C-alpha cells in the first residue's frame, strides 16, 4: 500500500513540476517567473521528502531544509531586485 501511494505521489509531483516549468518558460512578466521558481523549490522539497520515504534513509532532511532556506532567500532577493533595482543598498 505504501509503495503504491509513493509511486502515485511521484507521478503527481512530477506533473506539478512540469506545470511549473511551463509557467517558468511562458510567464508573461518577471514576477510570474519568480513565483514559478519559488514553487519549483517547494515542489523539489516535496520530491526529496518522497524519495526519502521510498528509500527509508534519513539523509534527505538536511538537503530539504537547506533547499527551503535557499529558496526563501533567493525569492526575497529577486523581489527586492525587482522592487528597488538593487539588492543591498
Amino acid at each position, binding site marked *: *500500500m*505504501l509503495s*503504491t*501511494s*509513493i509511486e*502515485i*505521489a*511521484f*507521478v*503527481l*509531483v512530477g*506533473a*506539478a*513540476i512540469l*506545470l*511549473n516549468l*511551463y*509557467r517558468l518558460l511562458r510567464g508573461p*512578466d*518577471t*514576477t*510570474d517567473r*519568480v*513565483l*514559478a521558481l*519559488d*514553487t519549483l523549490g*517547494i*515542489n523539489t*522539497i*516535496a520530491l526529496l*521528502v*518522497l524519495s*526519502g*520515504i521510498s528509500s*527509508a534513509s*534519513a539523509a534527505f*532532511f*538536511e538537503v*530539504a*531544509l537547506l533547499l*527551503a*532556506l535557499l529558496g*526563501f532567500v533567493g*525569492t*526575497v532577493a529577486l*523581489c*527586492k531586485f*525587482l*522592487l528597488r533595482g538593487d539588492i543591498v543598498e
Partner: protein
Amino acid sequence: MNPISEALIAVLIIVGGLFVLLGSIGLARLPDIMTRLHGPTKATTLGAGALLLASAIFFSSQNAGHISLHELAIVFFLFLSAPVTAHLIAKAALHRQQAKFCGERLRRDGDGTEDGTANSSRSPRRR
C-alpha cells in the same frame, strides 16, 4: 510497521501529492498574476506540509522509541516563509504594473501635443 500508521502515511502522501498538483495547476491555468499567487502560496504549502508530516510519522514508526522531528522544522519554516514570499511578490507585481502604466501615460501625453511638458509634469511620479 503498524497497519494503522501505514494507512495514515499512505493517505497523507496521496493528499499531499494532490495538493501540490492542485497548486501547480492553479499556477499554470489562472489568468492573472494576482490570482496565480493563490495556488502556490496556499495549496502547494499545504501539500508539502502533508508530505513532510507523512515523512515524520514514517520515520517515527520506523524505529520505536525515537521520534523524528527534523520534518517539523521544515514545516515550520515553510509555513513561516510562504506569506512573506507572497507579500513580496505581490508588492513587486504591483510596482511593475504601476511603473508600466505611468510609462505609457507619460509617452502618450508627452508626444504630439504642444502642452506635453505640462501634462507630463502633472502625471504621477515614476518610482
